[in-house]
């Protein structure tokens, strides 16, 4: 009856890991490698640099890159390299929360709307349409202007706007998925709707959101950097890439290095996340192509 003498006995863990790794595209490997290095650099910042990111040293202000200060110092004598390393913690943490809290809420709401339809769907979609009618950045700046700057308010502002993207994405995927036989089969067997949503449909619709979250992560880091540049983001003296770029802009003529390294860090992180997103598209899309 079955096509083949079933599958071979489950491979040992190491073999399965190797098989999984072999399916990773070069972009996924490079991206994850870069991202891992950045995360580790952020985690081990105190061991990678002898300086304190906040300590001011007017005797060592505006030093150009050299053996003591690899990327120079800023106008109040703080080591740029140290601050850029510590900023990894700030930026990745903010990027994480501004991406994945909206994703969690948006995917659940959108998936529920796509599965249940009816009034909930109608109300949700009108709310999303309203939110999306405003330009993204303008809306966030308005919300921040009302709430005031600061990390927590950034979370709130980005959340209020960010979940709509995921809700739309998840809803449209769910509309397709809800008409598939296995969802109908689960309904004919009387399983609760939340169970059908979480256990049956969600694993099959989450991939596009995960892939989207990678580019969203980059955009959110850029957004937070931009907000800090405008003075609406992370308050001084917390090291943050966008804020560091902003601090350096007045010294561009004498001390080009103040803005350069933080800017470079933003670029590298962005590239790493983009590569991971690209690789995940292939890796997760893979199953749809080869399976069933």
């Amino acid at each position, binding site marked *: 009856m079955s096509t083949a003498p079933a599958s071979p006995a489950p491979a040992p863990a190491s073999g399965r890991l190797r098989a999984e790794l072999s399916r990773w595209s070069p972009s996924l490997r490079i991206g994850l490698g870069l991202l891992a290095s950045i995360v580790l650099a952020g985690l081990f910042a105190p061991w990678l640099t002898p300086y304190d990111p906040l300590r001011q040293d007017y005797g060592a202000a505006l030093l150009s890159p050299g053996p003591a200060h690899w990327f120079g110092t800023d106008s109040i004598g703080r080591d740029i390299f140290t601050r850029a390393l510590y900023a990894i913690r700030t930026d990745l943490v903010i990027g994480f929360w501004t991406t994945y809290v909206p994703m969690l809420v948006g995917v659940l709401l959108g998936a529920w709307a796509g599965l249940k339809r009816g009034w909930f769907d109608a109300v949700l979609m009108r709310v999303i349409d309203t939110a999306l009618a405003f330009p993204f950045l303008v809306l966030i700046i308005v919300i921040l202007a009302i709430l005031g700057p600061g990390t927590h308010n950034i979370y709130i502002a980005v959340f209020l706007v960010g979940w709509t993207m995921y809700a739309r994405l998840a809803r449209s995927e769910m509309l397709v998925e809800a008409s598939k036989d296995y969802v109908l*089969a689960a309904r*004919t067997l009387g399983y*609760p709707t939340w169970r059908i949503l979480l256990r049956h449909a969600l694993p099959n619709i989450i991939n596009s959101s995960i892939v989207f979250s990678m580019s969203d992560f980059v955009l959110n880091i850029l957004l937070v950097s931009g907000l800090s540049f405008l003075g609406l983001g992370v308050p001084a003296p917390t090291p943050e890439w966008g804020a560091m770029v902003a601090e350096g802009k007045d010294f561009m003529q004498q001390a080009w290095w103040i803005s350069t390294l933080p800017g470079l860090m933003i670029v590298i992180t962005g590239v790493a996340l983009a590569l991971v997103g690209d690789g995940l598209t292939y890796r997760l899309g893979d199953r749809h192509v080869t399976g069933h």
Partner: protein
Amino acid sequence: MSPGIEGAPLLEVRDLEVSFRVRDGEVRASRGVSLAVHAGETVGLVGESGSGKSVLCRAVLRLLPEPAAQVKGGRVLFDGTDLLALPEARMREIRGTDIAMVFQNPMTSLSPVWPVGDQITEGLRVHRGLSRAAAREQGIALMRATGIPEPGRRFDDHPWQWSGGMLQRAVIAMAMACSPRLLLADEPTTALDVTIQEQILALLAQLQADSGMAMVLVSHDIGVVAETCDRIAVMYAGMVVESGPATEVLGNPRHPYTLGLLGSSPRVDDAGHRLDPIPGQPPDLAQVSAGCPFAARCGFASEECHRTQVRLADVAPGHASACLFPERIR
């Protein structure tokens, strides 16, 4: 329509009216359908695509695609309770425990991400509150009962590792998990190879005999129905046009559409038999005429057929036809 078996039927559909809203009006997918299914009996539902067979099944489970589809009238009595009047929570308990359904395409009836065994036993965990270990034990028994070889080892396989026939066995096991009293099998063999079809039909017949459940077997293949069913209801354009004991309906059809279906089915026992297709196309359900829906394609039709509304009426005890002139059919 009078029941072929004494006593109150387990499922009784009375004058069911279902309409789909479409852009330019309304499609009447079910037009006064009545059907009775008694405990332990198999009723075959035959008709071509779009005749309203699946709509009937989904209306019984109240899983029509709302808000596009709406039940406009009629009753669905299950063991005396009107399912159409039940609150949704109560209805959900009935689904899977009292009434279960098997679909046409086993390849898509299981979620691709979970092991087959988990999906077979999910009903036991949801409806019966069984622990994972207890459910596994019962699941393996179910897999054995549905003829899945080496159930212990295959429990943790994923759907893509199985063939269509095996998956249909799994889907049947999933439907049988909570021992339903009524199984709706919606074209359960259509997507399968002919050799596998036989096995699946035999399996369904055997499970039914063992459990005493009732079964509605939907098919567009009159041969499939002929083999397995006690009674047959023939559907056309959202109506039941003929119903009665299988031997009666197939051996002595009293509706021209049934006759046409029989004439257009290939027969193994008669190599020289010429297929005799039904001329014309099924009517557009958005604009059905006042008269008999089959009149335009019927070789026996006369003037009255196009004007007079038809109803199912007994032509013999237990055998009903919606033809105005059943005596013309020979």
